């Protein structure tokens, strides 16, 4: 059974991604002092070590689940209406859930098939060889002493120019010149910030890029998702007003281009939120809204339930699938474990952020389809495109308890079987034919 959507990465594809990545970095001028041939030696040494230290981490789960539904499983034992052995079905499901469940594993980082020389992904430490440890040590030095200061400087430049640029553009009167300049500023600053994270992004199907007056929905893995998308086009962001540095950026950005920021109190009022978003969408000259309907960060192996609010606004939905390559760095933000600062530090000391972005053809709500069904349809499309599994569970389960209605559903199903098999109240004459 295992976790569908994960795959064993072949050594060939690792080699190719490394070559692509490093040549990309050279091309973008991040490592101008290295000549290409010296770099090639570094690449091949790394590759040789990674391949020879192949940690056979099977990406399948620890248990093989039996997926026969309740009705079949219990019914095949049944002649009379209740058996002591009925509890075994529930027991088994319970034990399977305890050993490995589909939901809680999505709230922690994905396990890698082979080690990528970062300690943080080395779940089961095995000392392999001195050479590997030396290479790992060199990697640490490269990442912390060379890449980190470089990236930090770039990030600082990016954020400063974003604040300064948008404030300056915000002074201009509303006109097409202002819109054009604000686009230029946003794009440039995004590009600097993506370089700051050593991001290598592949955009697919650019012809489906979100248009003005539409709503862009995407799966959510980290706060970086927004930067990844604005690297290629301008969007109107939706979110809560924050304090601190984030608040400064928000206030500056909204002067240049109409983002939609809500106060914390306003967020609770769903009607108000929907109304404001609807107004924004109705104005065809405004930029497409960017929304993450999952509501929380998921670890990029699956897509969880989409909240229906975004799909009630109307308008055209432009789905976007984002898939990070975990081999180069883990982009997932585990907000219960790390705060934003340590998260950014981890991102900036990874090898790189490599991801694929697929723009998908626009979707609209069909006749007779309600918001929930529409949300599920969009979710399936995104999951299929990105190679992620689909889960009907709510991402909010990261923090909240599951609703009792699900348990009641299970109880109802079992009761139906109990009452159906023998008619209750009459003496059973079942034969024991095993």
């Amino acid at each position, binding site marked *: 059974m295992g976790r569908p959507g994960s795959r064993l990465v072949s050594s060939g594809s690792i080699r190719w991604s490394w070559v692509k990545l490093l040549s990309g970095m050279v091309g973008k001028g991040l490592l101008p002092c290295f000549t290409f041939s010296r770099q090639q030696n570094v690449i091949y040494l790394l590759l040789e070590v990674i391949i020879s230290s192949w940690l056979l981490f099977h990406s399948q789960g*620890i248990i093989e689940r039996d997926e026969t539904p309740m009705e079949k499983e219990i019914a095949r034992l049944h002649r009379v209406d*209740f058996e002591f052995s009925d509890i075994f079905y529930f027991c*088994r499901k*319970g034990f399977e859930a305890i*050993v490995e469940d589909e939901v809680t594993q999505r709230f922690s980082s994905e396990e890698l098939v082979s080690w990528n020389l970062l300690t943080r992904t080395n779940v089961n430490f095995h000392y392999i060889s001195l050479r590997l440890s030396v290479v790992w040590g060199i990697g640490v030095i490269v990442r912390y002493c060379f890449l980190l200061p470089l990236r930090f400087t770039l990030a600082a430049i990016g954020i400063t120019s974003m604040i300064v640029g948008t404030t300056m553009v915000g002074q201009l009167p509303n006109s097409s010149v202002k819109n054009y300049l604000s686009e230029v500023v946003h794009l440039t600053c995004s590009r600097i910030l993506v370089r700051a994270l050593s991001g290598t992004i592949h955009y697919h199907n650019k012809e489906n890029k979100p248009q003005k007056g539409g709503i862009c929905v995407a799966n959510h893995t980290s706060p970086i998702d927004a930067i990844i998308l604005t690297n290629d086009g301008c969007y109107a962001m939706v979110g809560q007003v924050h304090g601190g540095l984030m608040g400064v950026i928000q206030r500056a950005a909204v002067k240049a281009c109409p983002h939609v920021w809500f106060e914390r109190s306003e967020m609770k009022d769903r009607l108000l939120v929907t109304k404001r978003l609807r107004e924004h969408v109705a104005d065809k000259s405004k930029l497409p809204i960017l929304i993450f309907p999952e509501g929380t960060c998921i670890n990029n192996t699956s897509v969880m339930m989409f909240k229906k609010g975004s799909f009630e606004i109307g308008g055209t939905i432009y789905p976007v699938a984002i898939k990070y390559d975990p081999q180069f760095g883990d982009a997932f933000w585990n907000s219960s474990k790390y705060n934003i600062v340590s998260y950014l530090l981890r991102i900036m000391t990874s090898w790189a952020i490599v991801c694929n972005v697929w723009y998908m053809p626009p979707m609209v709500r069909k006749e007779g389809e309600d918001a929930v069904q529409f949300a599920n349809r969009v979710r399936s499309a995104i999951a299929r495109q990105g190679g992620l599994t689909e889960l009907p569970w709510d991402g909010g389960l990261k923090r909240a308890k599951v609703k009792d209605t699900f348990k009641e559903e299970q109880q109802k199903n079992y009761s139906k079987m109990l*009452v159906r098999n023998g008619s209750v109240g009459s003496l059973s004459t079942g034969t024991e034919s095993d």
Partner: protein
Amino acid sequence: MEKVNRSRDKQKGKKDTTAEVFSHSQITRLYSRFTSLDKGENGTLSREDFQRIPELAINPLGDRIINAFFPEGEDQVNFRGFMRTLAHFRPIEDNEKSKDQNGPEPLNSRSNKLHFAFRLYDLDKDDKISRDELLQVLRMMVGVNISDEQLGSIADRTIQEADQDGDSAISFAEFVKVGKLHFYLLNETAHPCFLHTLT
């Protein structure tokens, strides 16, 4: 990682059969599962830690299953206890039957599995399943969908069929004789449904 070594060494030192039931890699995976459930990071799991698993929280028998992990009167379970309870559900392999006839019975033997199931019903541990205890389990499984009278008659009928010494309660021996239960367990060993791990 030192924690795993320490706990495994402790087990080896005390000749606990639990460690021998699982392979090295299974223990490692179970330990990383244990630590991911242990949000308080104090080396033990509480009932709330189990309740945080959504698929277990919606299981009608979830609370009973969770109780099975906790020894009498305690609120915390350590890794050894965790593994011990999970060991009950490991499929019986043929090569284990011939091993060590004089040693302690393996945790996942048929009779130990039956004992485990019996204990799920028998809350007060008096080695009998009374009508009330059976009703309690039935009520957990059906929720509010069946009336008290109907449930009562189901319980009465079940006890009537299995009861042989006429005391209106099921003892362990009578429990074992219930044909279907045996059949299911036999079926279970042929079809390894649990802890079929790779590597």
